[in-house]
C-alpha cells in the first residue's frame, strides 16, 4: 500500500535510477556527437569512399528501430562472442543509433553555409580540414543547435529502452514500483514522468542558452 511512502522511503533508489538515466544520456550523447560529427564530415567531404560509407551508415542506423539495435547489441552480439559490460553495451546501442541523427543534423547545418564560403576558403589555400574547422563548422554550429537539441531530447527518452536490457535506470525502477504497488500506479507514473520532464527541460534550456550566446549578425 501507500506507494508514495515507498517512493519517499526509497528516495535513494529513485535518485540512483535517474542518475543512471543521466549517465547513459551523457556518455551516449558525447560519444554520438563525436561519431556524428565525423560521419557528417565524411559525408560532405571530398573522399568518395568515406562519403559513401557515411551514407550507408546513416541509411542503416537511422532506418533501424532502436529496439532492434538493442536486441542486436545485447542478444545477438554476445552469441557471436562480442560481449561488454552492461553499461557499455547500453551506451554502444544508444550511440550508434543517435550518431546517425547527429550526422544528419550537422550535415544540414553544413549545407546551410553557402558553398561560396567553402570555395573562398579553399581559394585562399586552406585545406579541407582547415576550411571546415575555421570557416564552415563555426557557422554551421549555430544553425545546428535547434535540431541537435531535438536529437538530444529524443536520446534522453530513448535511454528508457535500456530498462528491458538489464540496466536499472528510471523506467526500469518505475516498473518495479508499479508491479509492487498496483494500487497506486498513477502517482508512480507521474513521479517518474516529472523526472524525465526535468531532464528534458534542462537540455532544452541549455540549447536556448547556446542559441543566444552564439547568435551573431549575419
Amino acid at each position, binding site marked *: *500500500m501507500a506507494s508514495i511512502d515507498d517512493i519517499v522511503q526509497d528516495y535513494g533508489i529513485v535518485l540512483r535510477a535517474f542518475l543512471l538515466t543521466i549517465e547513459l544520456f551523457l556518455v551516449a550523447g558525447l560519444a554520438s556527437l563525436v561519431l556524428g560529427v565525423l560521419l557528417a564530415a565524411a559525408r560532405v567531404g571530398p573522399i568518395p569512399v568515406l562519403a559513401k560509407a557515411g551514407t550507408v551508415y546513416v541509411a542503416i542506423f537511422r532506418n533501424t528501430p532502436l529496439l532492434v539495435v538493442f536486441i542486436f547489441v545485447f*542478444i545477438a552480439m*554476445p*552469441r557471436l562472442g562480442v*560481449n561488454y559490460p*552492461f553499461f557499455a553495451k547500453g551506451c554502444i546501442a544508444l550511440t550508434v543509433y543517435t550518431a546517425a541523427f547527429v550526422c544528419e543534423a550537422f550535415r544540414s547545418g553544413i549545407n546551410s553555409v553557402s558553398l561560396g564560403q567553402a570555395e573562398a576558403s579553399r581559394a585562399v589555400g586552406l585545406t579541407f580540414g582547415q576550411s571546415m574547422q575555421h570557416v564552415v563548422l563555426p557557422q554551421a554550429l549555430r544553425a545546428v543547435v535547434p535540431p541537435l537539441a531535438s536529437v538530444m531530447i529524443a536520446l534522453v527518452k530513448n535511454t528508457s529502452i535500456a*530498462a*528491458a*536490457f*538489464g*540496466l*536499472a535506470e528510471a523506467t*526500469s525502477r*518505475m*516498473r*518495479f*514500483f*508499479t*508491479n*509492487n*504497488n*498496483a*494500487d497506486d*500506479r498513477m502517482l508512480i507514473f507521474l513521479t517518474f514522468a516529472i523526472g524525465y520532464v526535468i531532464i528534458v527541460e534542462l537540455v532544452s534550456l541549455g540549447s536556448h542558452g547556446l542559441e543566444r550566446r552564439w547568435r551573431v549578425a549575419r
Partner: protein
Amino acid sequence: MNLNRTRIAVVSVAAALALTACGSAGDDDEGGGADVDVKEDAAAEFDDGTAMKEFAEAGAITIGVKFDQPGIGFKGATDDAPTGMDVEMAKILAGSLGIEPDGIEWKETISDNREPFLEGGEVDLVVASYSITDERRAVVGQAGPYYVTGQQLLVKTGSDIQTVEDIEGKEVCSVTGSTSLENVEAKGATARGFDTYSECRDQVLDGTVEAMSTDGSILLGYAAENPDEVEVVGEPFSEERYGIGYSLESPEMCEWINETVQKSYDDGTWADAFEATLGKSGVETPEPPAPDACPAA
C-alpha cells in the same frame, strides 16, 4: 535499374526476416495436458446476474495467461493454444462453467499488465503465475492459492553458485520490475532486468549473467528444456502463492473459483494437471495449498 536493385534488397531482407521468425518457433513439444471435465448445462447452476452465469450462457470466456513460461503458461509462435499448469487450471475453471477448452480465448498477460487487463475488462480471469499480495488485492480480486512455490536460482551446470549466498557481487537476471529482482538485489547481487524470462535464460546460456532467479516452478520448466546445460540450485528463499485474478466488480467469482479449485484437489484433476505440466521436470507432485477465505461481500 536502381528501382530493381532496391526491390531485390527489400525482398531479400523480407526473406531473411521470415526465416528468422521460423527459426525461433517450434522448439517445444509438450502440448496436450490432462483431460478436463466439461460440465453440461452448467448455466442452470448459477444465479442470475452473476458473472459465472454470463460466461456459461455465452459459452465463452477470456483468460489471461503467460506465454513465455514453459511448464506454467507457454505458447510457441506456431502453437494454437498455450500449455502449462496455469493453462490447465484455467481449463478446469472454464470446464466447471460448461465451456470447452476451444471456447476459451487466451490472451497473453505479462507481469505489468495483469491488473490493468482485469480492471479494464480485457480479460475475465488471470491465471498467470500471479503471486497473491495485499497491494494487488487492493485493486483486483485474487482467489486461491492453487500452487505455492519459492524463488530459486538457475545456473549453468557446474557453476560456482550453489546457494543463494553465492550470488553476492554477481550479476543475476530476471524480469524487469519483478519482486524476484528486488530479492536478489537485497542479497547483494547486481540485478539485471529483461522483458521476458526467455531473454533472461539466454543471458545465462551465453554467459553474460551468472544466474537467473525467479519462482522455482518457472526455473524447473527452463531446466527441463535444457537439462544438459542448466540446473536449478539452492533452497527457495521466498514464498510465492499463485492466485487467480478476477475483477472486483464481480466479487461473487471468488467463492466459485475457490470451490472449483478445492474440487480439483479432491477429484485428482489438480494432480493430473501438475503431472502433465510441471511434474515433467521430475519433481514430485506437492500437497496442494488450501485456498484463502474469500473477503466478506
